[in-house]
């Protein structure tokens, strides 16, 4: 009855969303609130000679206009970076200042120049049109590889050749070169993993509120991690006292990575509010979101994989130029390095791996984590290599993978698997997921259908992708050594109320993942109480002690584990009280179904009675404190490593190059599952985004680094009729090192699906010969040109 783990419990949070009662940042209206509109650079790179705000200042409703000069003169710092990656020679990465508004020079189209604050949204917008800026356009660069060439426009004077860092991981280059020389066959791919725009359906928004009487600051913001935002805001940007700052991330309409970061607008709203002594709200337009939300991916890579005669992988060599954009976003340096290079072992026993990454500044929006962050890039690279190699060596792509997989290990009886690229995988049976996927797709039958279809002139294709990812990024000591400037633990507080109802405070933030349900299931199940007796509180730094937020599929593995630690403390303390009340020895008690029972008797005391006793401690064990409220910090021992096998079946229209995704099969292993309905939902959403990258999405910059598809009229979002119903299944290999045995499911779908779709299209195009130059997204024209020769 109170057994909730593993059940598809309907979501607790749904009712408010279904009835229009969700509370998103832009829904909040505070007394006396002002509205901000940010004037942005139309140029990707330009000097500001002069800004004339005089006309705008006199317009109706305008309260104040601030420019970058005002910000600079106030003496505050810019937006910091949360991760440091050094040059190979040991030099610190280049970390140029990132002001809230620029004063001298704009470095990307959309760089903030001035903010208009008015009594209404309309008046702020009208006044912005009347600000005259004397621009001096400078040459700009958007392409990461071109940006490193001599003579390329410099984004920051302090970063020669626009290099932020260069970085290497794995076996020494010479060892890899040597292994490559032994190879019977080398598959080489040169490609761009294009820039995609996260497009959470809720655009970013921020309200800054300073109350003069109390000296208290409140920031309402669309954030995936309010505590980190508070820390950065206080310690690095504004230097305001952290204990007087409250950051609230109320309901947040999706993030997908783009709302992890601390953005300039958040600090700016607080800064403005402090000056004007009134709350100030900024809500991004979608057009603005396109050009200011941190984008994802944007790697230019050359990848080579060497094989022996039998098809065993011998070595992998990767050189990547990673576009970081114009400034360093919060986790930007970490994504193409520690979240990408470390995943290049994939599922394969590759004996030698070397990865070399150059982080590059360009005149584009910041690039940072986007669903999967680094891991999709690594997977795309490996899985395109695998399918291409299979084609080139005339082997079956599934067979080639099965041959090269790391043998099964559970991380308990068998040790974890040490890779060539710094990680130790926790547990896995990689053959099992692919075999299950082949079974679901009906592989042999499909190949026959395909052969028949080809005879009829139809282009059917099948593509595979098997992946591993690293979730629940940790432990703090390790990530600290790798450059993280924050710990990556999580906080979980469980407060049992006197009536036995339970409030749980978590630093993990939910913006669609269903924490209010999943976490409640864990708590109710462990305490043996009804789900309805548990409330999950998140997203408010005044309620929740601390937290590191939600990203990298860390919530349950790290945040959930912190809660479990607190639950253990609750049960332990409860046992003391129960033993006293039952006049039994603690070790004679067992806790199950919400009560402590003296083993072998029917003597028991319910959880609620123990809770009441804790708060009304009239008859109470000696030396035990009243109350029942525990907080725990959980710092994980290792990452978790979900994995899976995805298969796509496509049909390409010979006449137009249009690709129709006909089937998509995904078998994922995310460890133990608390709520299968929610996990399935996470997989579905990830698949759509990964398929989106393969077929539809991609930011386009022209030669002047102008973003030319910055609206839904030009940036293709996957729609319902672009996708099939997904066929999904899972295997379960528990994570051996966290108490719930969970691995994380948020990004899996997005990581595995992209290469599966591209591989399927390449397979469909097999009758046109083996070519490798098809770049994502696979637009009809690209595919058509590929067929033309």
């Amino acid at each position, binding site marked *: 009855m109170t057994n909730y783990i593993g059940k598809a419990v309907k979501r607790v949070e749904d009712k408010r969303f279904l009835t229009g009662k969700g509370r998103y940042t832009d829904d909040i209206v505070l007394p006396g609130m002002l509205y901000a509109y940010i004037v942005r650079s*139309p*140029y990707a790179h330009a000097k500001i000679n002069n800004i004339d705000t005089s006309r705008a200042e006199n317009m109706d409703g305008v309260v104040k206009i601030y420019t970058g000069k005002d910000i600079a003169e106030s003496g505050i710092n810019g937006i910091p970076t949360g991760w440091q990656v050094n040059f190979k020679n040991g030099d610190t990465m280049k970390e140029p200042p990132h002001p809230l508004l620029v004063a001298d020079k704009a470095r990307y189209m959309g760089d903030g120049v001035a903010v208009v604050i008015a009594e209404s949204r309309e008046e702020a917008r009208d006044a912005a049109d009347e600000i005259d800026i004397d621009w001096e356009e400078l040459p700009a660069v958007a392409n990461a590889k071109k940006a490193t060439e001599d003579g390329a426009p410099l984004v920051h004077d302090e970063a020669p050749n626009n290099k932020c860092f260069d970085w290497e991981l794995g076996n020494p280059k010479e060892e890899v070169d040597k292994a490559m020389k032994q190879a019977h066959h080398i598959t080489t791919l040169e490609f761009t993993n294009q820039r995609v725009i996260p497009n959470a359906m809720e655009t970013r928004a921020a309200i800054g509120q300073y109350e003069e009487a109390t000296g208290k600051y409140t920031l309402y913001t669309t954030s995936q991690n309010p505590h980190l935002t508070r820390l950065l805001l206080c310690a690095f940007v504004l230097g305001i006292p952290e204990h007087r700052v409250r950051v609230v991330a109320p309901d947040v309409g999706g993030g997908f990575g783009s709302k992890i970061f601390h953005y300039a607008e958040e600090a700016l709203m607080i800064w403005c509010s402090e000056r004007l002594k009134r709350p100030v709200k900024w809500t991004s337009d979608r057009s603005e979101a396109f050009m200011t939300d941190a984008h994802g991916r944007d790697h230019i890579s050359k990848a080579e994989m060497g094989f022996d005669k039998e098809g065993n992988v011998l070595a992998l060599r990767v050189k990547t130029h990673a576009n970081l954009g114009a400034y360093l976003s919060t986790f930007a340096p970490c994504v193409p390095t520690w979240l990408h290079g470390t995943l290049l072992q994939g599922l394969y026993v590759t004996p030698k791996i070397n990865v070399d990454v150059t982080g590059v500044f360009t005149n584009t929006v910041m690039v940072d984590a986007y669903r999967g962050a680094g891991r999709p890039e690594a997977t795309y690279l490996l899985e395109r290599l695998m399918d291409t190699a299979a084609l080139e060596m005339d082997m079956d792509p599934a067979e080639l993978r099965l041959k090269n997989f790391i043998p099964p290990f559970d991380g308990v009886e068998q040790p974890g698997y040490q890779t060539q690229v710094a990680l130790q995988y926790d547990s896995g049976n990689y053959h099992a997921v692919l075999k299950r996927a082949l079974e679901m797709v009906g592989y042999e039958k499909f190949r026959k259908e395909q052969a028949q279809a080809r005879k009829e002139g139809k282009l059917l294709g099948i593509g595979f992708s098997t992946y591993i990812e690293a979730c629940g990024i940790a432990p703090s000591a390790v990530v600290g050594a790798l450059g993280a400037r924050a710990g990556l633990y999580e906080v979980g507080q469980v407060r049992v109320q006197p009536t036995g109802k339970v409030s749980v405070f978590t630093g993990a933030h939910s913006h669609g993942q269903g924490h209010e349900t999943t976490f409640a299931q864990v708590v109710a199940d462990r305490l043996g109480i009804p789900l309805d007796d548990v409330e999950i509180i998140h997203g408010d730094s005044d309620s929740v002690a601390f937290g590191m937020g939600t990203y990298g599929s860390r919530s349950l593995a790290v945040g959930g584990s912190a809660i479990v630690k607190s639950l253990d403390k609750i049960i332990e303390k409860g046992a003391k009280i129960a033993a006293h009340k039952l006049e039994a020895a603690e070790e004679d008690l067992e806790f199950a179904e919400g009560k402590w029972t003296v083993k072998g008797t029917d003597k028991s005391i319910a959880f609620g009675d123990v809770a009441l006793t804790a708060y009304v401690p009239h008859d109470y064990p000696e030396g035990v404190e009243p109350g029942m409220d525990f907080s725990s910090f959980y710092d994980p021992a290792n990452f978790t490593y979900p994995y899976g096998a995805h298969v796509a079946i496509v049909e390409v229209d010979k006449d137009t190059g249009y690709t129709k995704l006909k089937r998509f099969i995904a078998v994922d292993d995310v460890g133990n599952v608390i709520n299968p309905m929610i996990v399935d939902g996470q997989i579905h959403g990830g698949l759509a985004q990964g398929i989106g990258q393969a077929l539809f999405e991609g930011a386009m910059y022209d030669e002047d680094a*102008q973003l*030319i*598809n*910055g*609206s839904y009229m030009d940036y293709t979002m996957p729609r319902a009729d672009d996708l099939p119903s997904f066929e999904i299944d899972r295997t379960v290999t528990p994570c051996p090192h966290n108490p719930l045995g969970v691995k994380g499911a948020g990004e899996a779908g997005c990581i595995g699906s992209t290469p599966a779709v591209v591989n399927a299209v390449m397979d469909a195009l097999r009758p046109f010969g083996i070519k490798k130059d098809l770049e994502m997204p696979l637009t009809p024209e690209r595919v058509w040109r590929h067929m033309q020769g």
Partner: protein
Amino acid sequence: MHLKGSHQFNAPAHQIFKMLMDADTLARITPGVSELEETGPDTYKAIANVKMGPVSGSFSGQLEVAEKQEPESFVLKIQQNSKIGNVAADVKIDLEETGAETTTLSFDGKARLSGLLARTGQRVLSGVANTLSKQFFKALEEELENPAHQPA
């Protein structure tokens, strides 16, 4: 955006060239241009009102005639700014006499857009360019046929 096009006129090259060098004529035949004021040798201040379907904007900026090779070619350098975005274009104009009284005018150049126009206007750009060049050629043709408009 690449700008390219050509049209044959029933006039000798030097006549067309001369017309194109005349500010008043140029102002009359260039679609959208409402004002062209000479600010220096071969340099003009230009005001344009573009009204096309969903887009309507007032542009102002500079127009410069460079690399003059009378009567064969010149380069038109345009910089126009507006609230909805900015346009910068370098267009080479070639006049080739294909007969005694016939000349082919061809242009080839690049327009660079920034701001809102660049971000939202992609779908319509080549159509705009096509229509504007059609209008320009038509207007030039009419000028050539109308002796009253011949520059002195």
